[in-house]
């Protein structure tokens, strides 16, 4: 077995058994990155020297019996998490060269538990996108390709495209990611790996470059559901520096993966059965539900009547918050600063922001500014907030009947890099199954469940009650076991 073929679980077991070292693992992944990253472009920054130093230190800690829960595990960090001393770009030119003097709480927690960081992975600019093509540091390629069309390069999904591609290509044991409307679950599904967006407030947002504050939530992507559980346990926890983080104990999520689903009531929302949905997606969904029934769960048809308003609601709320969150990128204190001779303040703003922000980010800033403007606020932002409350209520009512909800993760498999270019609204439809969990603050996990006719991975999503990631893990692991998903992408270390 190659070292890079390890899951997080098996790697930790091997480390604990003394069969390998963090240095050996780190070297193996760095070798893979050096070989494959020029093509995949999953990493924006590879911290080879720092990673090897950290691996040595980790092995030394292990030698004196001070191994943390993630001791020695090489991970990739989405370049939206501020990492002290390492450039953090958010995928944007406007943050080019920005080296934070502080560490995000999530990455600090991972370091506390012994993780080794291989580098910073690519993403859609400011996490705005579903293809990873809006990154100022270039698109990321999905390591999977279509069986009958191997030359068409596919997107890894977004915004955590670098995270998902790196893990799928065996360039890291796991990666941090963030999810504002589906940015963990959609790329996980596109790349045939698992990824969970926990309940809003489970992970601290401190030190994560903000996109839409009321929706953003960090989570892991990894090869298996259990690996996600191990990572989330380290990432999560109350942080007094984030007023929206929850002061709740962090459960043993890995233990929940082994919990049987017998007796669980699984909700099947009729509104997720879209007109014109690909038959393969429909069939996969049916298959997943059957697997759960076979393991003793019962199915309950439920209604989430405001689902059809979720996407438009999301595309009002998220840009509104983003337009405000991104105001700080003004060229005055950090990052890009564009001036001309005799530039005044306004000119500095205009030049810096025109050059520093890409087209999609500019589009969302404009949408967000528009929906908050005097005379439009009530019709857009306020209306969206009301609909958001209704979407939340839909779920609250459903929790009276079911323990978890299972849906497709995405409406399609990964698409080609040159497809879905012309119309941003078509691109936004990628989030149709995932945005509701963000709007309602609920945990949602994507699990690889099968392949389409082209041999591309497809995923299912399990949505849970607030603070009940454990049931997401139980149900996700049950699907994973039944699916026995062993396929691997053509490009991998």
């Amino acid at each position, binding site marked *: 077995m190659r070292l890079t073929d390890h899951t997080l679980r098996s790697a930790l077991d091997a480390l604990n058994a003394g069969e390998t070292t963090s240095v050996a693992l780190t070297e193996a992944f760095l070798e893979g990155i050096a070989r494959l990253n020029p093509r995949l472009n999953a990493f924006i920054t590879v911290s080879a020297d720092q990673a090897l130093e950290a691996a040595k230190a980790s092995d030394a800690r292990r030698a004196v019996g001070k191994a943390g829960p993630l001791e020695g595990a090489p991970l990739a960090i989405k370049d939206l998490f501020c990492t002290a001393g390492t450039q*953090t770009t958010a995928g944007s030119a406007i943050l080019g060269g*920005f080296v934070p*003097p*502080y560490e995000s709480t999530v990455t600090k927690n991972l370091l506390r538990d012994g993780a080794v960081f291989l580098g910073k992975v690519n993403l859609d600019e400011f996490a705005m996108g579903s293809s990873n093509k809006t990154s100022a540091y270039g698109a990321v390629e999905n390591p999977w390709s279509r069986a009958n069309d191997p030359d068409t390069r596919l997107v890894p999904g977004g915004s955590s495209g670098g995270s998902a591609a790196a893990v799928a290509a065996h360039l890291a044991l796991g990666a941090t990611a963030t999810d504002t409307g589906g940015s963990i679950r959609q790329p996980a599904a596109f790349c045939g790996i698992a990824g969970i967006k926990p309940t809003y407030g489970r992970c601290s947002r401190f*030190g994560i470059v903000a996109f839409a504050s009321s929706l953003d939530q960090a989570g892991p992507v990894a090869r298996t559901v259990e690996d996600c559980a191990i990572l989330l346990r380290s990432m999560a926890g109350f942080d007094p520096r984030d*007023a*929206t983080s929850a002061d709740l104990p962090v459960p043993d999520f890995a233990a929940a993966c082994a919990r049987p689903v017998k007796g669980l009531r699984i909700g099947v929302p009729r509104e997720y059965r879209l007109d014109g949905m690909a038959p393969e997606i429909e069939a996969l969904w049916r298959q997943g539900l059957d697997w759960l029934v076979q393991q003793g769960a019962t199915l309950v048809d439920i209604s989430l009547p405001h689902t059809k308003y979720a996407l438009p609601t999301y595309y009002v709320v998220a840009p*509104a918050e983003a337009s405000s969150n991104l105001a700080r990128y003004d060229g005055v*204190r950090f990052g890009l600063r564009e001036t001309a001779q005799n530039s005044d303040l306004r000119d500095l703003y205009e030049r810096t922001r025109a050059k520093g922000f890409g087209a999609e980010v500019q589009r969302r800033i404009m949408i967000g*500014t528009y929906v908050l403007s005097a005379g439009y606020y009530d019709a857009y932002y306020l209306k969206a907030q009301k609909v958001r409350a209704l979407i939340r209520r839909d779920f609250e009512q459903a929790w009276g009947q079911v323990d978890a909800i299972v849906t497709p993760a995405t409406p399609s498999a990964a698409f080609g890099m040159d497809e879905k270019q012309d119309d941003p609204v078509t691109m936004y439809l990628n989030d149709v199954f995932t945005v509701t969990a963000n709007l309602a603050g609920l945990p949602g996990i994507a699990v690889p469940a099968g392949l389409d006719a082209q041999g591309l991975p497809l995923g299912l999503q399990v949505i849970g009650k607030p603070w009940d990631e454990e049931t997401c893990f139980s149900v996700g692991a049950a699907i994973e076991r039944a699916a026995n998903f062993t396929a691997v992408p053509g490009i991998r270390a």
Partner: protein
Amino acid sequence: MSYTIEGNTGPWELVIGLEVHAQVISHSKLFSGAATAFGAEPNSQVSFIDAGFPGMLPVINRECVAQAVRTGLGLNAEINLWSRFDRKNYFYADLPQGYQISQYAHPIVGKGEIEIELADGAKKIVGITRLHLEQDAGKSLHDQHPTKSFIDLNRSGVALMEIVSEPDMRSPEEAGAYLTKLRQILRYLGTCDGNMDEGSMRADVNVSVRKAGEGYRTRCEVKNVNSVKFVMQAVEAEARRQIEVWESGGTVEQETRLFDTQRGTTRSMRSKEDAHDYRYFPEPDLPPLVLEPDWVEQLKASLPELPDVRRARYVAMGLTPYDAHVLTLEKETAAFFETVAKGRDAKQAANWVTGDFFAALNRLKRDITDPPVTAENLGGLLDLIADGTVSGKLAKEIFEIMIETGKAPGVIVEERGLKQVTDTGAIEAAVADVLAKNADKVAEYKSGKDKLFGFFVGQTMKAMQGKGNPALVNEVVKKLLG
């Protein structure tokens, strides 16, 4: 008779409302742990939160919330147990986040009131519309470099209370009295130091004019006025300008103006058309601010005594309304007085504080926070008068020595042998000596020139270097003159 300004078309009434920004007294900022001290090196009190760095998040400072609640309670206002922060979005170089976190739709404090007193003794209630918490911006310095502006972020994120009045004031005097009273209450509460020259309190003044019996006409806002005197001047200047506009057939446009303290006039800063669209929306980084009723009750129970109550108490202690007023104007003065009066005759203590002590402050240009004589020592001097150790007249001399030397009165009396003589024998000897040396005057007295009695007393006191007990000296002179 209400205040009016006489125009060409007859008298005009004024309508005035104030928005006061008061910097909250707290060790750290509203949403970060950075310090708030005034006068520090530029950019030395700035956290990454205050500088708007990526990924930084605000966390509310409990003490600032307590200060806002205390202030609300001191203004007899409703405390809103549920309030919320909003973002006010605009671009400026000294606003690092690109938005100010404020409370727009749901302030922490609702309606309240302040009673003001005018020079003629009339009292008036001015309504408080609301009080909300918000963060201050940094400071742009345009005069440090020929082509560059400098930014100091020390103030960025400092907690402010914006206290908005109803448009209840009708004259410059009322506006001045309101601001003075508000500042007095804030200082008593210890929630704002009220130092307008350091910028920790500043007022936006809303002014309109109207004819008697009319509704409101268009108002203008005069921004950032930084003294009571300037507020009164700005009100009058702006009212006169508006009257001139109306009377010359024009229309007052709603706008933001600045008061030029040199010229004593207001000038336009920006018109309504240029007004920002601040795109307020709920601050998603902060959950709603929910106060426990018990906590508010605790704050209420621990509020200090406020000026109106204290004043009434002083009057009940026997002070004149005027002395009670003067002694309660500043919290520090009242505290000084209370120390002097503690366990002593309150009226006498008030006389000394408002008399010799205030005179000394004026003469020496000293402040109550830096008194030339401590309250403890002044109290000690009153004790020496009370127990007959020194006379009132001698006490005044001792008081001057206390100012010069800073010594306690007992020490001065001891060192200089100023103890009052109550030994009748010694006094009789001194009187006898005076009478003997002034036999001619004694004769005049006996022939009916009663006024000379005081001369003999005075001569005796002088001979005894002021130490003779005045009552006893009087008695002995009377006795020996037969």
